[in-house]
């Protein structure tokens, strides 16, 4: 069966069809503005009231050679009238601005899905740049899809005939034409984007006008040209009652750090060296100076953590942020913060490794290096964010642990969370529990700089306090803070540092099991797989499978109670975007259970279907055994 194409669409009624959820993938050259297009669609859908989740997928190169496959930038979003947890496995609609974008993405498209292509970008030279020997619009590549060809370049030129902009600048409005077209198809309002353009290009009236005209032209084209067989509508989602905003992971994380410092009663000092995909945390915080935030863009990764340590020594809350390679560079200084027992928050927005790896692709492969990756026995708590909307509270949690236990804390995020966006149910700020820091200001008779409270935390003395002068450093120390090479002291200090971090588990809740308390299989996840695993487990349960799910936000120390929970299931399936690091950890910590690793390191998130298939495989195997 040949699917209908734009050419054979006959004029007539344009029906309005209701859909529950739609996955769109915008793809184009990295200069085509696909991230802007995707973000605008996201924003408009959020304001409209859909639930949504996004997956930006862009190259590390700022502008790879135009029209080539490495230069393709994509933005996928799922918007829905019901509760969704992922950006979707397979797009229903692919918008491809050139042959390279089409070829890179077509394999992910749902069978029978819609492909909207910019047919003006399929000339011989374009095909050559994309390394296409034949024209994919003609060679059968798109058989089985509904192809809608739109000459976007020409349409934009026509629409902007009266604009004073140069031809080159006119063509840069292509993405808004495309966005307009998609707004028509999915019955979205234009106003949010029209307003956004006015704000974005304030003072540049020609640019505002041109982009607004392009947006409207795209919208009207859908209406007039009858490219489509109808319009679709994705009604508002029935989200939990509350107040919402749309938020990206790195932004929620930055706001959480400000909140954490405030709850501790401290000035936040964030020191960082730019690195993908963590740079925007620094950029967001640099914009919050009126909230008392101090930021330093350091000369390198090591300087960044060292300045943060210096800031904590001086009695503020030092923070630093980076991604994998930067974590490796910060290792020695993390040891210094552990040895001197200074509070510090270290953000690691993980990316694919090793070495430079794939800077813009997702991975969870810094888990074990976060927990263990330093010289000496150097324990440190590790907290893992799982989605943009929980970045706020887990950033606060990292600050709490840091100041209450006088320890550096690693806060893990990843590229999927950092650049992904979703509606955030805004917290009641009055309900946030403060954890004000009490600096030691008086030298009681038995005072020691490395004395201990009931949690094993040492007192925090800040320079400037009269009569409390002391010296600290990375050399092993006696409780007095003086250097000590005493064998028994080193044993005691090592044991104490270890136990102090273990004690953090006393302050964290046992995670709840999603689903039945016992059964054949428990799926355990941490970090950004949460939505995918939740969806996969819901689907499996709908099929009658005995599967429950648990999610860890505190990956070190592990929360209490896991041993007992695991014992109620035959096996624990551990999907992770690394080579079985959590499985390795669990086998060491809680060895009495059957762990089944399930791993993927393609730089792309799991698909729900992949996890579902693995759940089925494990259950079938166990039933057959």
């Amino acid at each position, binding site marked *: 069966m040949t699917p209908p194409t734009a050419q054979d669409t006959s004029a007539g009624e344009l029906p309005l069809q209701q859909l529950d959820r739609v996955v769109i993938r915008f793809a184009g050259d990295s200069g085509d503005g696909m991230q802007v297009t995707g973000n605008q669609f996201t*924003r408009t859908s*959020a*304001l409209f*009231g859909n639930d949504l989740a996004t997956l930006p997928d862009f190259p590390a190169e700022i502008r790879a050679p135009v029209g080539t496959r490495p230069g393709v930038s994509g933005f996928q979003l799922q918007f829905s009238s019901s509760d969704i947890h992922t950006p979707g496995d397979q797009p229903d609609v692919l918008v491809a601005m050139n042959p390279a974008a089409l070829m890179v993405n077509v394999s992910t498209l749902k069978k029978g899905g819609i492909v909207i292509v910019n047919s003006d970008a399929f000339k011989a030279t374009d095909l050559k740049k994309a390394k296409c020997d034949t024209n994919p619009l003609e060679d059968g590549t798109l058989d089985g899809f509904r192809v809608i060809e739109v000459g976007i370049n020409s349409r934009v030129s026509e629409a902007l005939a009266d604009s004073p902009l140069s031809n080159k600048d006119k063509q840069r409005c292509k993405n808004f034409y495309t966005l307009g077209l998609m707004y028509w198809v999915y019955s979205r309002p234009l106003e*949010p984007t029209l307003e956004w353009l006015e704000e974005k290009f304030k003072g540049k009236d020609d640019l505002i006008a041109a982009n607004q005209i392009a947006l409207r032209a795209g919208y009207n084209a859908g209406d007039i040209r009858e490219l489509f067989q109808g319009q679709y509508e994705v009604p508002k989602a029935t*989200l*939990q*009652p*509350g*107040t*919402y*905003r*749309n938020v990206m992971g790195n932004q929620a994380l930055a*706001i959480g750090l*400000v*909140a954490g410092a405030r709850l501790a009663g401290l000035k936040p*000092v964030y*020191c960082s060296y730019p690195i993908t995909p963590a740079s925007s945390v620094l950029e967001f915080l640099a914009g*919050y*100076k*009126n*909230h*008392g935030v*101090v930021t*330093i863009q350091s*000369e*390198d990764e*090591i*300087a*960044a953590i*060292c*300045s*943060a*340590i*210096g*800031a904590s*020594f*001086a*009695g503020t809350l*030092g923070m630093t942020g980076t991604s994998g390679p930067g974590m490796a560079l910060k290792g*020695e*200084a993390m040891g*210094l913060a552990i040895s*001197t027992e200074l509070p510090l928050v270290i953000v690691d927005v993980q990316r694919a490794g090793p070495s430079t790896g794939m800077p813009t692709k997702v991975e969870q492969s810094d888990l074990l290096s976060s927990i263990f990756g330093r010289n000496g026995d150097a324990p440190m708590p590790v907290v893992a964010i799982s989605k943009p909307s929980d970045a*706020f509270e887990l950033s606060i949690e990292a600050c709490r642990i840091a100041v209450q236990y006088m320890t550096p804390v690693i806060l893990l995020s990843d590229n999927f969370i950092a650049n992904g966006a979703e509606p955030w149910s*805004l917290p009641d*700020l009055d309900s946030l529990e403060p954890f004000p820091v009490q600096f030691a200001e008086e030298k009681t008779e038995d005072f020691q700089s490395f004395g201990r409270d009931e949690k094993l935390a040492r007192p925090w003395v800040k*320079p*400037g306090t*009269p*009569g409390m*002068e*002391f*010296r*600290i*450093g*990375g*050399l092993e120390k006696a409780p007095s803070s*003086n*250097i000590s090479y005493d064998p028994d002291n080193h044993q005691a200090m090592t044991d104490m540092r270890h136990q102090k971090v273990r004690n953090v588990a006393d302050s964290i809740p046992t995670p709840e099991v999603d689903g039945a308390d016992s059964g054949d299989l428990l799926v355990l996840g941490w970090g950004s797989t949460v939505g995918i695993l939740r969806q996969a487990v819901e689907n499996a349960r709908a099929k009658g499978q005995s599967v429950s799910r648990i999610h860890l936000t505190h990956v070190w120390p592990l929360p209490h109670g896991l041993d007992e929970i695991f014992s109620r299931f035959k096996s624990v399936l551990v999907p992770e975007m690394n080579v079985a690091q959590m499985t390795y950890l669990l086998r060491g910590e809680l060895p009495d259970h059957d762990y089944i690793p399930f791993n993927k390191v393609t730089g792309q998130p799991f698909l729900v279907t992949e996890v579902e298939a693995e759940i089925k495989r494990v259950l079938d195997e166990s039933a057959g055994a």
Partner: protein
Amino acid sequence: MTDTAQPALTKKDFASDQEVRWCPGCGDYAILNALQKHMAESGADPAKTVFVSGIGCSSRFPYYMNTYGFHTIHGRAPAVATGVKVANPDLDVWIVTGDGDSLSIGGNHLAHILRRNLDVNILMFNNEIYGLTKGQYSPTSPVGTKKKSTPMGSIDRPFEPAQFAVGAQATFVARTIDQDQKHMSKILKAAAAHKGTSFIEILQNCVIFNKDFYATTVEKKVRPERTVDLSAGEPMIYGAERDKGLRFNGFTVERCAAEEADVWHPDTPSHAPAVLIAGMRDDPEMPVPVGIMRSVEAPIYETGVNAQVEDAIATKGAGNLKDLVYDGEIWTVD
């Protein structure tokens, strides 16, 4: 000070209770002595004074001062000090480092603290050798230095610390000598008075691994002929008889009679004179310059950082958390 003030502190008040553990005869003792004396004489407040060090023999220094102290990791003292000073600009921060700590493993941080012009004092003990690791050549050792790791002599050209500092836009660069207590006191005082980063190279005697360097350059008996002490507005004169002088001739410095010597200005708009003067170190025929080689004013980093926070509060108003969380487009679901 008023009559009700605390009694003035003495040198002893700045000594910690820790036993000093440098080798007997080490130049570091003299520097410690001068520093404790300077602290007492300048009326420093131990509670507001912080010594930050890296790793190496010199970096044990903070343990011996009865002030706040932070013995950090190799090469990173400037980065730690940056955090301390930005977090609390009221603290008087001193960095103690060595030639390896500051110019090898920590070269990057030294360059950047100097260009930022943090208001701290850097004491760089230069003995042209790695002492704590038992005698390998350092980035300031001359070419051909034969040590255990360089049995056939070192190949790489040394850094000239003052040129490095001046090149990194340091606003105060000076050099002094561990055993010349009077000179060191004068330099410490000038450095403490300077607003911005003061970089003080202290030629220091490692009696175990590199005493020859010291003996031939700055030891008391050769010092008058082998060094020239530079002071602002004074002619560049040296020699036991004060009969020798230095003058600029284009892009070189040349020796001349005392009466023909040029007057030294460490505050010229161009840093070229300081680079030329510091470069004399490469020439064994020329005296080693000590004294103040550069002294200019520039904006201070931590002042600027904190002023931006104040400005943002003044223009946007002090932010509360609600503004940050409930920002942008928000909507309500009933």
